[in-house]
């Protein structure tokens, strides 16, 4: 019998390849782990449709389980679609401490409506969006008007 709790713990502890301070569990992309005979089936939600990190995360999860002696298979779960609301409170704090403003508000992209994004360095909400898209599909680029810190913001979807 596979220890599913242990498998879930190992899978959840795998770091994100682009933002290594947060883990699979922090991002809320681990749906569940089920047994298929002697194989642990890890069910993961992709973040963005075309994000290159999706495959990297799947391979890393499978490899870390294999290293722990647990044969695993990854299943991609599309529905319900992942939302930034699933990022845990701990994950949000880790992002902020790393210098990335965590997502705020719900997952609605309304024309011209922009929620106030707090600067991860000084906490000021006097921030400007510099670029709608950033270095990865999940981020936008901002700048703080008070402390002049340029920073990434994890977009809400």
């Amino acid at each position, binding site marked *: 019998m596979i220890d599913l709790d242990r498998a879930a713990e190992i899978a959840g502890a795998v770091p994100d390849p682009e933002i290594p301070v947060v883990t699979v569990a922090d991002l809320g992309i681990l749906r569940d782990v089920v047994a298929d005979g002697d194989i642990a089936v890890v069910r993961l939600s992709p973040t*963005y*449709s*075309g994000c290159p990190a999706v495959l990297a995360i799947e391979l890393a999860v499978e490899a870390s389980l294999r290293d722990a002696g647990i044969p695993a298979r990854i299943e991609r779960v*599309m529905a319900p679609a992942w939302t930034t609301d699933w990022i845990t409170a701990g994950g949000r704090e880790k992002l902020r401490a790393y210098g990335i403003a965590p997502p705020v508000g719900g997952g609605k992209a309304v*024309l011209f409506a922009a929620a106030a994004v707090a600067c991860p360095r000084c906490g000021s909400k006097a921030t400007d969006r510099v670029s709608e*898209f950033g270095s990865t599909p999940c981020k936008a680029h901002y700048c703080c008007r008070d402390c002049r810190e340029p920073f990434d913001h994890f977009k809400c*979807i």
Partner: protein
Amino acid sequence: MMHEALLEIADDCLVLGHRLSEWCGHAPMLEEDLALPNMALDLIGVARGLYARAGELEDAGRGEDDLAYFRGEREFRNCLLVERPNEDFAQTMLRQLYFAAFMEPFWRAASASSDEVVHGIAGKAAKEVAYHIRHTGEWVIRMGDGTVESAARMARAVDALHRYTGELFESSPAARAAEAAGVLPVREEMRGDWDRVIGMIFTEARLVLPEDTHMHSGGRAGLHGEDLGHILAEMQSVARAHPGAVW
């Protein structure tokens, strides 16, 4: 039949994704050099999921690479709008807005698809494409209500592209079969949402919505402009030079 309806949408996303990626390294500013390939990535991600599903439904042993790289021009089912050349930044942004304003309500409605895979893809794509509307809508307004030069370019873009928007709302026989089976929403039903979003943005942008435009179509039947052949020649060249190669 069902796989052909999915191929139409997959081809739309792949061809437009390729068009956007042509801007990579050439965009008018660094922020747009990030934005355009980011939107391309979303579209190509959606295309991959749809090709894989179409291949399964076709059940003839073709996977996503076979469908993307080893079909000829007449076998592509994309609408004509997405193959239109980038030209300038105004045309690129307007083309994207026209497409996104259609796909956003389409994907929202498709989240109720009777096909589990389409249902999953739709939920994710609807959120991504809403972001595309916001980004491109802001640019269309900024340029339309901008300088004399930018306003003239936006007006030229409307003149060049509006005639390709009618095809978005047409359902081919394959699409009608998928609609009847509850796999895809009825294209014509997106008109209300599309008119509302485009109307709102055009008003802000001080652009005039053309009336009684003659609408071109034919893409769903494989009848394309010469531009598609050039896209495929470039996009498929590596796969055709090294058939079967994987990484």
